[in-house]
């Protein structure tokens, strides 16, 4: 259980990181390494060079900025989870992080590494899909930003050039996601067999309501059940309702229909059923939180 040989290349600035990415043919960036190190040990990844960006201080921040919360690529999961602006303005993200792996792993794993890896079983993806933050990248051609729904192409695949790196993201405040709403609520619900496991199903939900407790806007994303799924028909099924039983049933049915589990037979049916069930729970919790905020 040891990685193949590599050369460790520590860099102290973003420019040095880009230069190193251009210089070495077979290189990977290492930030926290909580996904990359296990991949190296199992030889799924065997880069010749590891460009260590872990000490670039300018990428370590979580701070409020107008309508967004800016998160640096090297902010650790724990730092994001505990940051007051995230708890206040994007609660589901904090709630999601609390369910990733375990405390020591969350202390080392970073935002940028997680976003760039885009593991379909990871907890971030559904949360990112409903929040749709602007992802900030930099490379030899300069800086650019791209919304998450364009950045994320598919499992383990994102819109990044070879010598680019993620520098951060602008997480929109929930109140800006539905600016006309009277109140907004959000949640992330995960099912795993053991504490710290990858999700068998993970559901992110944002619900906006008007003063009469009617849903004006719903965002629902299901992760870990086949490809990342934006459950648009389920969203439509609850919009305009007070999230009564019929609306929840219709949403759950739409989710079961929308997901495409990788597994066949009973295992796939199980994951479809769990996706429906956890979507119901997520919608209910987000709705309850929204109406409590009225």
């Amino acid at each position, binding site marked *: 259980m040891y990685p193949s040989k590599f050369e*460790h290349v520590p860099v102290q600035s973003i420019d040095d990181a880009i230069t190193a990415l251009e210089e070495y043919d077979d290189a990977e960036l290492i930030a926290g390494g909580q996904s990359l190190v296990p991949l190296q040990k199992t030889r799924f990844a065997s880069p010749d060079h590891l460009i260590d960006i872990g000490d670039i201080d300018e990428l370590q921040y979580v701070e409020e900025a107008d309508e967004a919360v800016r998160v640096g690529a090297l902010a650790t999961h724990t730092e994001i989870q505990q940051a007051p602006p995230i708890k206040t303005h994007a609660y589901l993200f904090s709630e999601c992080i609390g369910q990733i792996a375990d405390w020591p792993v969350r202390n*080392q794993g970073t935002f940028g590494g997680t976003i760039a890896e885009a593991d379909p079983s990871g907890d971030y993806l559904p949360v990112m899909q409903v929040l749709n933050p602007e992802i900030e990248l930099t490379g030899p051609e300069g800086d650019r930003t791209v919304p998450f729904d364009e950045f994320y192409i598919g499992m383990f695949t994102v819109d990044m050039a070879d010598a680019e790196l993620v520098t951060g993201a602008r997480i929109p405040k929930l109140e800006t996601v539905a600016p006309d709403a009277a109140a907004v609520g959000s949640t992330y619900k995960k099912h795993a067999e053991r504490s710290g496991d990858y999700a068998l199903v993970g559901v992110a939900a944002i619900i906006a309501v008007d003063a009469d407790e009617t849903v004006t806007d719903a965002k629902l994303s299901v992760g870990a059940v086949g490809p990342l799924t934006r459950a648009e028909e389920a969203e439509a099924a609850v919009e305009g309702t007070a999230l009564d039983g019929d609306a929840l049933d219709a949403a759950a049915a739409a989710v079961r229909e929308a997901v495409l589990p990788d597994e066949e037979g009973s295992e796939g049916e199980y994951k479809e059923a769990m996706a429906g069930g956890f979507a119901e729970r997520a919608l209910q919790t987000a709705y309850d939180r929204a109406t409590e905020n009225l």
Partner: protein
Amino acid sequence: MTDTDSETEATTTVSVTVNGEEYTKETEDRTLLVHFLREELGQTGTHQGCVVGKCGACTVLHEGVPKKSCMLYAAQVDGDEITTVEGLPDIAESEGVDLETREGTTLHPLQMGFKQNHGLQCGFCTPGFLMTSYALLQKNENPSREEIKSALSGNICRCTGYNSIVDSVEWASKVLQDGERTAMPDGGPETGCGRGCSCVDDESTGGDRP
């Protein structure tokens, strides 16, 4: 530091402060921190369990924060401060909270807590549990049982069933807060069975129990 090809192994000179003592050693770039500590520095208190980041036996503090030392390369922590289980008695002494066993060994209240409350059986996982628990009590001096369980969810123990570990951390938390350094002297309770009941306080029942 050096060029690598298929024949040679890239190495880095790593300087770390472990439990207050500075070490500088050249090591392979792919050396994991757990192996650097154990094999290069001879600090074998940190245990290697699963080596895939699941079991937590190798947990150490990196700049005061608990991390799994099998999930870090030694080269990543160059210039940094590491605290391992070997450092706990010194920390306790410097903070004036050290406890002593009958044999005269100095222990941190957490170590005494695990000893007194059957927080270990085989002891293999214990260094990791101690380090995570220490970091928890640094952040939160009076954690609830749920908070203890949550903090320790990345540490696996195959002996105890965990309840006695949670008891151990609670015991240490109380001792550290109340300064009840003789609350439960080593060698067991002086009276009673130690479960907080009144079984031996009532002299009439003493000696007749099976």
